[in-house]
């Protein structure tokens, strides 16, 4: 007797699981009642959430502070465009190609980037992304430096669009939005589930061990190199998928927008920091705050971005664990518990 057992879940996490299931169910059926602009807003939130979760996994758990994730958004987007325009692949399928293309490209990238550490890694990944942007700008078949649009025929004949159009009795353009919304919902839910699952595997736990105490982890023989590599590849694949999806919805691409460090890395970093880095909940909180700020302030243009920069600085200096960190400090609640607790039963009397 007196032997404890390991427990990961908490009361609030079981509660959260119910809420999450309910949310997913509501979200699936939302297009039946919601208007087009709400779906577009949610598409934006979900796809940003995918990007932020992957960056959070990289930097918050893996210690890999990349400033070059826009490389995988761009490569995914261009792989999607390339396979649609040159290969006549259906756009829905081509999103998968986007993920694979990003993954394939992440292998040589990792070979380079993993020779670098800390700040060098950050700058190195940024330069690699720039190289890809400039390289893609040379690819004339997809518009070179000025970019191109998805051919109308491809988006019109896209899988499921006809069905949705009939089912909801809407125009094909609205049906495309619904399809994109569902895809983004699916991608977002899978992303969070996969990351949550990964963090609870042996490889995932190695990341925690090294993050919390690198020397102690090394002294008991934990090597997190493989874990970090896996994280890097997974993040590339997931970011590539998101890139493909985002540009399927935009239907227009250029190297400068697809490889934008501001849109696909700077915003992502701010979201993660404001929400709370190194937690799964943080990016969710962050993306909601970000969306709110954007809806309220984006009319003010540069004032909006200035505010965003200053908020990022303030959070990093005064609340480095972000809004979610502040919240858990007050309440002790965790929705996605990744820490294991040792539960020792009280002595029988």
């Amino acid at each position, binding site marked *: 007797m007196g032997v404890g057992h390991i427990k990961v879940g908490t009361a609030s996490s079981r509660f959260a699981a119910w809420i999450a299931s309910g949310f997913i169910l509501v979200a699936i059926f939302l297009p039946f009642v919601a208007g087009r602009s709400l779906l577009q807003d949610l598409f934006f939130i979900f796809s940003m959430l995918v990007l932020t979760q992957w960056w959070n996994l990289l*930097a918050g758990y893996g210690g890999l*502070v990349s*400033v070059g994730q826009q490389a995988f958004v761009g490569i995914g987007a261009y792989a999607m465009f390339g396979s649609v325009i040159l290969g006549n692949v259906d756009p829905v399928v081509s999103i998968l190609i986007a993920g694979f293309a990003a993954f394939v490209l992440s292998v040589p990238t990792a070979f*380079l980037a993993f*020779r*670098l*550490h*800390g*700040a*060098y890694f*950050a*700058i*190195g990944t*940024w*330069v*690699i992304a*720039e*190289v890809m942007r*400039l*390289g893609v*700008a*040379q690819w004339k078949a997809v518009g070179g*430096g000025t970019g191109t649009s998805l051919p109308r025929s491809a988006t019109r004949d896209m899988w499921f669009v006809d069905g949705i159009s009939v089912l909801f009795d809407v125009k094909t353009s609205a049906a495309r939005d619904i399809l994109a919304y569902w895809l983004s919902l699916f991608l977002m839910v899978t992303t969070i589930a996969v990351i949550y699952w990964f963090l609870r595997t042996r490889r995932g736990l190695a990341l925690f061990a090294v993050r919390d105490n690198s020397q102690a982890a090394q002294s008991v023989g934990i090597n997190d190199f493989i874990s970090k590599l896996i994280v890097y590849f997974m993040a590339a694949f997931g970011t590539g998928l998101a890139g493909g999806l985002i540009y399927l919805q935009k239907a227009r691409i250029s190297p400068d927008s697809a490889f934008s*460090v*501001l849109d696909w890395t*700077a915003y992502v*970093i*701010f979201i993660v*920091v404001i929400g709370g*880095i190194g937690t799964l909940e943080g990016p969710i909180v962050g993306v909601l705050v970000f969306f709110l700020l954007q809806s309220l302030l984006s009319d003010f*243009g*540069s*004032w909006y*971005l*200035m505010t*965003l*920069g*200053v*908020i*990022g*600085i303030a959070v*990093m*200096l005064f609340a*480095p664990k972000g809004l979610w960190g502040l919240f858990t400090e007050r309440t002790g609640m965790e929705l996605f518990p990744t820490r294991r607790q040792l539960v020792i039963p009280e002595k029988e009397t």
Partner: protein
Amino acid sequence: MIWLETLIQGILLGGLYALFAAGLSLVFGIMRLVNLAHGDLIVVGAYMILIIVSILGINPFVATFIAAPGMFALGWLLQRFVLNRTLGDDILPPLLVTFGLSIALQNALLEGFSADSQRINAGALETASIPVGSLSIGIMPLLTFATAILVIFGLNQIIFRTALGRAFRATSDDPITASLMGIRPSSVFAIVTGLAMLVAIIAALYLGMRASFDPSIGPVRLIYAFEAVIIGGLGSLWGTLLGGIIIGVAQTFGAAINPEWQILAGHLAFLAVLLLRPRGLLPRAVD
């Protein structure tokens, strides 16, 4: 002969990149601080010079001297009250804070000066050149290169020949032991960033005289500068000059082959050097 000219142009361009990078190299070498706002701070400097020139109607070189104390103070305050709080083993806080600063500065400049391109007028100097054999070399690139050498020489004199420089190096090695010597690391770091901003205002002068600038160009200059610092090697200012020259030469040769390849060639040269020598060409400090 065309290749020789390209080579010389590249080397001289490297001087400009070394000027962008010298302040960054100083800050990075001594504090391991990655200042992602360095490029934007140079742009801020360029606007300061522009304002002084247009209000007082004086020579831009004189205007730079007038702006210099302000830039030093800016750097000192920034380090003392913001960046010192981010230093530590974790590289994320300084990266994020300077990233935030970069975006805030860019948009503040955009608000204040609009997105229009500006230029600091250097008069006849802009187009003057001297013939060397059958080549003709621009005075402005030559002056930039000479300034870069002078700046790096001066910084090295401070670092290796003065008590302040000893304190820089000691604090960089081990801030706690340095504080046992009566050195206050936070003050030393503030002076380092102040000094880096003095270099930045010189870089700003040449940035503004040689080409037009607008609020958004900081990050691109920052990348070139970082490439120069990294391939030069941590903590070596001459290495930074060498790094700048490599980027500059790669860019001019790339452009000579195909104008669209200029930037790409510079980045590829950076990655190639990094692949072969991950710690740079002339590393002084151990990372």
